[in-house]
């Protein structure tokens, strides 16, 4: 049963932030809110005010500029992202990820800002975006701040958002030349939530050696887990399948998954290793072109 609340529908971003300022800890922001409503229905969340920002047009945009990179407004829906031509062209991994995020109905209604603010470690966008070195812009009535998405994700369902703050924009830098990025989750049903997931982004230098790399694991801990040991291992190295296998081993050691009914911790570690190996290999091949 959902507890009673007052529904507020600010007509502009400014009004939204004023409302947030006014109601502070008595309110909760909804921006799509399909996951939020599940929690509310369980009676796990009680709030006096629900501030709906989904319809705020100011935050519904996709901008791309080769220099400044990609900017996605917080209220942009998943389906808008997966069908955006500039994203298809410049960030195919985002399209692939969004495409498998959930069913079409959920992608039609859910927003990128809502997803990230929910802080579910099994959510798909965060891992991929961290691999792509994304930043996130948040703000309140007093102003805005930008932080890395990695720092934004704090814990199970917890983000760095402070009271009165909302997500405004996701910023993804333009990938360097010779960059490949991949993402895959392990599940038994297409487009289901992943038991675990891995994202990899590999950038090669002129000599075909690894210039930069990121490996980020989803549902592998209380927040997306970046495997820095793998990144160190690969930097400066050439294509080598043994190396990918080694990277997989490291990933399965460095992640912090937990047991639940779907898989044991041990199985999750194993899968994360396999996915890391596969994603690195694919990303590398993509980077080679």
């Amino acid at each position: 049963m959902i507890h009673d609340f007052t529904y507020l529908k600010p007509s502009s971003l400014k009004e939204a932030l004023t409302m947030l300022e006014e109601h502070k800890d008595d309110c909760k922001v909804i921006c799509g809110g399909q996951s939020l409503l599940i929690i509310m229905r369980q009676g796990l969340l009680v709030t006096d005010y629900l501030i709906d920002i989904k319809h705020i047009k100011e935050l519904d945009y996709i901008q791309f500029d080769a220099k400044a990179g990609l900017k996605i407004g917080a209220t942009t829906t998943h389906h808008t992202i997966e069908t955006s031509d500039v994203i298809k062209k410049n960030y195919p991994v985002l399209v692939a990820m969004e495409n498998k995020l959930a069913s079409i109905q959920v992608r039609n209604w859910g927003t990128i800002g809502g997803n990230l603010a929910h802080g579910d470690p099994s959510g798909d966008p965060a891992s991929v975006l961290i691999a792509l070195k994304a930043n996130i812009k948040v703000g309140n009535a007093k102003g805005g701040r930008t932080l890395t998405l990695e720092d934004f994700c704090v814990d199970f369902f917890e983000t760095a958002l402070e009271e009165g703050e909302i997500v405004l924009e996701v910023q993804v830098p333009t990938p360097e030349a010779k960059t490949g990025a991949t993402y895959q989750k392990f599940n038994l049903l297409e487009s289901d939530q992943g038991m675990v997931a891995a994202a990899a982004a590999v950038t090669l230098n002129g000599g075909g050696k690894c210039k930069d790399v990121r490996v980020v694991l989803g549902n592998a801990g209380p927040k997306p887990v970046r495997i820095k040991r793998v990144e160190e291992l690969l930097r400066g190295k050439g294509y080598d399948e043994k190396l990918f296998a080694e990277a997989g081993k490291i990933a399965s050691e460095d992640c912090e998954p937990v047991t639940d009914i779907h898989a044991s911790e041990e199985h999750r570690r194993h899968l994360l290793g396999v996915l890391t190996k596969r994603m690195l290999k694919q990303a590398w091949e993509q980077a080679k072109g």
Partner: protein
Amino acid sequence: MIIEGKFTVKAPIKKLWDTLFDMEALAACLPGAEKIEKIDDTTYDATIKQKVGVVKVKMKGRQVLTKVDAPTHLEMEGEAEDITKLGRLKDKVTMDLKEIGGGEVEISYAVDVSMGGKLAMFGDRILRAKSKEVEKEFTKNLQEKLKGIT
């Protein structure tokens, strides 16, 4: 569900044991503990508040010591219920203290928790992960506390 773990604390074992039984001190160390009240020698009532993301849980319950071998071993059992009826949990705790040299004591614990109600579904995964965090913070606080005492 069984949550197991161990951590080390630098303190004399006797002192550590006493601190663990000093409810005020213990409450100060245990993250989210609002109140621990001694009912009799083996019975304690506790209220603990925890927050996971948007979900806030306030558990109220009673723990009963079932076996105490000072200063190395203790067992207790208890039940708690969320005050807004989100769920219940039952637990059985075994704790062992062992001197491992260098003035350090290793505390190992095993908690067998079963949850009911909404918490069971939502809580399983999170409780496990959260326990690690709670353990970390508890160790830190305990260490601080012990410094003050010794």
